[in-house]
């Protein structure tokens, strides 16, 4: 039997007995076969001894059980690592940040406590997946939408706490921002409710976020200060209709006004749907069309076009641009979407066209007009998450790829945040492509466009493959860390990362001699003096492990 680090076998055995008394013997896992389920399926340490693994796992079914587990863990100094459903592949999965921790698996806490249609909110436990919530809403014929990531298999609470993003409208795509109220088990077993939930019999826990006094919800995301056992979310009222349109512009430099105008139309909510940038001339698909391009093949390019593409630098050559102008192939295409009553979204699209018309040669096209409710048989005609429908379709892609003739065994997401401007896209491509090329990293090999999950910034989300070759994985891990540092030197930082890179990422957030990290440590020592909760998560280590590390 595996034993957590720093814990004697005898103490661990006693703790396991007490855990069994709380959750039942069948929900305490210690065999290798059971614990294999808690390995990170995309671990960058595939087949290496440094892979982070669990010593055990516990699956409570209630908040009260979580409180008891935490008290036992304090008694025996058992390091716990909390997961909701552990589906954040590419960002660490179910595996603990501190190898040898006991995974506290909240999947059995899967109750949908309330979905309020009138005020459009839900209150759920951490084991509720996007599929679960979607199904509940459909079965109860409620006129609300969820906003889900792609794939939509994960926990609503877990994704929000990891600060994931989605694809509907700007008010809901930032999953942490769209939460309203939490219930938290603190490291000493105390129960806390945030916002209006701090009022006994609160009537507005899911309707007003901050309550009164310091608003502390943020410290429970990407952290290890408590175990969130309930969380409220604002839902989107089902729109009457949906309109998806494109704005195409002909020249490389048009990217700059294109983004400026996008920012205005989105920040003023003229268009609130997921903006998606494509480059027909560079052969770069929008996220919403990626699946269709793969299933049906990308648009064909002439030999001349392919030849000119090879000569482009940072996505540009005068010849390529001239070719695009001659052949009528836009350099950039922006996909915009509108949700609401038909007459409203028609007017929004009209205003949008007027604003973008200041770019010479801009062309406009309506791509889809949808009335809701949508016929379920037609949902795969669209990128499902943009219509609030969870999907696993992203896994329909085969595994053989030219960049990796042996199938990839997963990936590590490289996800830097950059400013919301055309200039920043070009600069980031220049910086990262030079760095990646010198490091031999399979990133930024061609001009790369960011995603628009959040309305005030861009994010690149790029997959660095995990291979079966430990030497290649080692090289990629080191290269990945160097790219993080390169980003940091330019003022860009990752929004989320796998445990193996969390220290490197947090080291970039170094203003005033790492005052943010030092504050995190101060909080940790005050809230969790025994250091039992999720040690090492986002580089927040308890005192005894900080001392060991130094």
């Amino acid at each position, binding site marked *: 039997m595996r034993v957590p680090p720093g814990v004697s076998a005898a103490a661990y055995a006693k703790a396991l007995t007490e855990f069994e008394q709380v959750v039942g013997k069948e929900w305490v896992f210690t065999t290798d*076969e059971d614990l294999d389920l808690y390995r990170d399926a995309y671990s960058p340490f595939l087949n290496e001894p440094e892979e982070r693994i669990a010593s055990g796992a516990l699956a409570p079914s209630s908040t009260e059980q979580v409180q008891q587990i935490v008290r036992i863990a304090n008694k025996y100094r058992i390091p716990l690592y909390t997961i909701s459903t552990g589906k954040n592949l590419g960002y660490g999965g179910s595996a603990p940040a501190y190898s040898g921790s006991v995974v506290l698996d909240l999947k059995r806490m899967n109750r949908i406590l309330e979905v309020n249609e009138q005020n459009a909110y839900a209150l759920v436990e951490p084991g509720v997946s996007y599929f679960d919530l979607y199904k509940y809403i459909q079965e109860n014929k409620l006129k609300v939408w969820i906003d889900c990531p792609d794939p939509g298999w994960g926990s609503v609470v877990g994704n929000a706490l990891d600060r994931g993003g989605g694809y509907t409208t700007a008010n809901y795509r930032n999953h942490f921002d769209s939460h309203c109220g939490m219930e938290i088990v603190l490291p000493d077993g105390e129960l806390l409710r945030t916002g209006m939930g701090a009022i006994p019999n609160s009537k507005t826990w899911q309707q007003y976020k901050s309550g009164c006094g310091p608003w502390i919800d943020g410290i429970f995301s990407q952290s290890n200060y408590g175990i969130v056992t309930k969380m409220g979310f604002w839902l989107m009222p089902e729109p009457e209709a949906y309109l998806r349109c494109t704005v195409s512009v002909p020249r490389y430099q048009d990217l700059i006004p294109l983004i400026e105008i996008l920012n205005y139309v989105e920040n003023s909510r003229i268009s609130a749907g997921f903006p998606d940038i494509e480059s027909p001339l560079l052969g770069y698909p929008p996220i919403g069309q*990626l699946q269709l391009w793969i299933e049906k*093949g990308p648009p064909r390019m002439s030999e001349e076009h392919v030849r000119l593409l090879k000569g482009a630098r940072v996505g540009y050559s005068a010849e390529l641009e001239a070719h695009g102008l001659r052949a009528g192939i836009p350099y950039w295409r922006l996909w915009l979407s509108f949700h609401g009553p038909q007459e409203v979204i028609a007017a929004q699209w009209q205003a949008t066209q007027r604003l973008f018309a200041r770019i010479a040669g801009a062309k406009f096209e309506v791509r889809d007009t949808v009335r809701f409710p949508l016929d379920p048989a037609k949902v795969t005609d669209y990128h499902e998450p943009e219509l609030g429908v969870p999907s696993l379709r992203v896994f*329909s892609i*085969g595994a053989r790829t030219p960049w990796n003739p042996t199938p990839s065994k*997963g990936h590590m997401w490289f996800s830097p945040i950059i400013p919301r401007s055309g200039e920043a896209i070009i600069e980031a491509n220049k910086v990262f492509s030079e760095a990646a090329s010198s490091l031999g990293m399979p990133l930024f090999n061609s001009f790369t466009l960011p995603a628009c999950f959040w309305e005030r910034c861009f994010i690149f989300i790029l997959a660095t493959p995990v291979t079966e070759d430990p030497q290649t994985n080692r090289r990629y891990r080191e290269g990945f860390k160097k790219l993080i540092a390169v980003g940091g030197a330019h003022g860009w930082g990752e929004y989320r990362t796998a445990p193996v890179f969390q220290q490197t990422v947090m080291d970039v957030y170094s203003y005033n001699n790492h005052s943010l990290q030092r504050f995190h440590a101060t909080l940790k020592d005050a809230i969790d003096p025994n250091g039992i909760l999720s040690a090492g998560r986002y580089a927040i280590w308890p005192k005894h492990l900080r001392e060991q590390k130094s």
Partner: protein
Amino acid sequence: MNRREFVAASSAVAAAIGCPRLPAATRAGSPGLDVSWVLFDRRFGPSRAFGSAAADLRQRIYGIEGNVTEFWTEHLDALWRTGTGAVAGMTTAASLVCLEQLAAQHWFRVIGRVEHQRRCEQIIMHRIRAEPRWLQRLRGGLAENGSPSHFATALLEPGRRGIPQVSVEFSTNTSGQWLDAPPLVSWYIASRTATHTEFAAGTGRHEVET
């Protein structure tokens, strides 16, 4: 890898799509076998042959084109919530990663897997991971001149639980159906507590979900 490279990389697989249809799902059942569903990918010849062989064994089959969403929402989630219901199949590795994660949601796990990857025009490599006796049967099912039904039979009769799994890699000559197929993987997913008693070969098999 960015979106453009992703499309380029995937187009080789997309080009391989050719979908003579098996029924999307069939209802059958064999008293000797306890799998609830056999999954196959309609896009790829070897997987279609596997699905046909399972149907011939009177198994309930389900065809996908990579996307397991409908299978999950319509069948699998409800089945696995009951804590029982083994499922087997031959799919891409990507589909299996997805199913494996979904299985873990209910503490189900892959108890045997066989990766199949063409190495050159005429050679296909198989990598089996399973408990030793089952591994031998799986290997036998993949032997030269073996039919898809031999392999399907071997896969659908799982090995013992609680026995450490071992791995073996070997090659066979390809048949024509593998020529355009990407790497595929055959697998068997069972619950945490599914156990069975071994049986004498050819006399049938007994599995009990406890």
